[in-house]
């Protein structure tokens, strides 16, 4: 499986048009210099040999060296990873905390105004393009109404970052008791998180609603009610547990969507994360960086799926691990 993934990424990036050598060497380089660079980067060897070399490097955790920054891709990605993770994780948490209760409420009180609002939100969240929503919010909240700081990255220009422990600014500044930095980091997070969360709430609310509706119609919920358990307990203590299983799977899928969306959002908010790194890499024909990013993102995605599987197994005793 992983082999297939690496193969595909490799093939894709090698097919990138334009030669990176032109980028690195610049227009003034002589033929001899170009040749030397080709050899240096191993680009003169046949493709399959390059692939094998790449795999060998992978086994040692080496993702190659960026053509643009001349630093190991693995190091670059590791440096930018926490920024993206903080963004997507906070957005995901917000989406779950908002979306699931909304979906459940919509299922329990079908036809109420909450139900209608949730359905409209769900349709909107799925249909509105992430990059457009970002722009609209930046325009309104920053430019027009001056509600949020300028979209210039994770911290305001004049704020010093706290010492790095986890790479998550929110956690690090809390640990260092640097409340000014914490507040600033939080303020910078508001808009990009809002955009991503809005997109993520939609599918989560939907699946929560559908799942809850299905569960409420089952014979076992009917049996629970027949024993005189009050409706509130039926929904929140019993049905919720049953309904959460499909929601969890959707969380994993939405995470993948957020990872993709982070490319768009990070570029617009000047967020120093993996997404922006990838964007720059693609524009610069930086093979190893692009490859590295795709692999990294995919591995993160797979890890999340595994985590979700584990949690599902905990919740549902029928699943055999």
């Amino acid at each position, binding site marked *: 499986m992983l082999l297939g993934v690496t193969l595909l990424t490799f093939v894709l990036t090698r097919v990138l048009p334009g030669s990176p050598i032109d980028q690195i060497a610049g227009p003034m380089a002589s033929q001899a210099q170009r040749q030397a660079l080709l050899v240096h980067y191993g680009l003169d060897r046949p493709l399959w040999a390059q692939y094998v070399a790449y795999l060998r490097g992978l086994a040692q955790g080496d993702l190659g060296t960026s053509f643009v920054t001349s630093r190991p891709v693995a190091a670059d990605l590791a440096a930018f990873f926490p920024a993206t993770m903080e963004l997507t994780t906070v957005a995901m948490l917000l989406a779950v905390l908002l979306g699931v209760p909304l979906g459940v409420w919509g299922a329990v009180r079908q036809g109420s105004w909450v139900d209608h609002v949730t359905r409209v939100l769900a349709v909107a969240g799925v249909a509105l393009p992430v990059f457009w929503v970002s722009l609209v919010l930046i325009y309104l909240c920053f430019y027009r109404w001056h509600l949020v700081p300028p979209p210039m990255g994770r911290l305001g220009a004049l704020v010093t970052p706290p010492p790095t422990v986890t790479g998550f600014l929110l956690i690090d500044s809390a640990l260092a008791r640097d409340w000014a930095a914490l507040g600033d980091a939080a303020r910078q997070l508001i808009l990009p998180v809002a955009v991503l969360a809005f997109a993520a709430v939609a599918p989560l609310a939907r699946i929560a609603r559908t799942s809850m509706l299905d569960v*409420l*119609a*089952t*014979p*076992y*919920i*009917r*049996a*629970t*009610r*027949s*024993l*005189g*358990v*009050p*409706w509130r*307990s039926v929904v929140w*203590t*019993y049905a919720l*547990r*049953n309904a959460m299983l499909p929601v969890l799977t959707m969380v994993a899928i939405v995470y993948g969507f957020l990872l993709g969306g982070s490319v768009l959002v990070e570029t617009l908010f000047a967020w120093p994360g993996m997404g922006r790194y990838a964007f720059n890499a693609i524009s610069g024909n930086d093979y190893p960086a692009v490859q590295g990013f795709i692999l990294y993102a995919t591995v993160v995605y797979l890890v999340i799926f595994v985590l979700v599987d584990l949690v599902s197994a905990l*919740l*549902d*005793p*029928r699943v055999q691990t």
Partner: protein
Amino acid sequence: MLDVRGLRVAFHTRRGVVPALHGVTFSLAPGTVTGLVGESGCGKTLTALAIMRLLRPPAEIQEGDVRLEGRDLRFLREREMARVRGEGIAMIFQQPRASLNPVFPVASQLVHVLRLHRRLSRGAARAEGEALLARVGLARPDAVMRAYPHQLSGGMCQRVMIALALACRPRVLLADEPTTALDVTVQLQIVELLRGLQRELGLTVLLITHDLGLVAEMCDHVHVMYAGRIVESATAAALFRRPAHPYTRGLMAARVGTGGRALPTGIPGRVPALAETPSGCPFHPRCPLAGPGCAEQDPGSEAVEAGHAVRCHYWRSGVA
């Protein structure tokens, strides 16, 4: 104890409102076992669910009176009705394993119900739960408490359900086909269990079944249902001695007899789909006694003898 009068239930479908129960009326006397007999689709389960107010859209109660010890159940607020469920009336269902929540161990639900209805502490509830499981005939109550429904057999699940119902100390028990989904040997055990418990606790039971043998064993009174109506009511003894309605007689003839009897004869035709209920008496297309007037007018209730009523125009011509 429990009075049902003129219960009408209908389904709201794409093709309009389809009636399912047409004025069902019966009473349960305290401490007795009453059977509600009929083939699948005649509305027996629907009646029980309507009494418990567990119907979900598109089904809806349109008319009727349901009273528990004189108290009107139909117009109670949901919170009040939840209190009646369990302590007033409890129900056991047809598919035991499907009726237990798969992601909770048996202990959770049992303990919750015990604490809810009897206000026991957690420890006392656990102990009582195990005692109940033992009472319904489970060999290793402690193991069952920890188990999940998918780890238990059908018979064990049914016993657990009975334990759950008993935990509420109900006055009335609605048993919807409690043995149908089980193996034959297990069926006998469950029947024994139910009989014993009913006698011991003086429960008022409504036994819903299509099995006449079960009725003969357990029931004091019987009501026969067809197409959403009660077509005959009598004591069990009277019903078996002198079945009046052609449908009841058809059901009796369809049983496998013991020793030297003729082969069972089925009733020709099939139970009509809800939306295609025949006019007048719904049984007339399949009825050997059908005559003029049967297709036009639904028969009213007539007395065969004291305590024995039937709804048929021509029942006399069939009865010896």
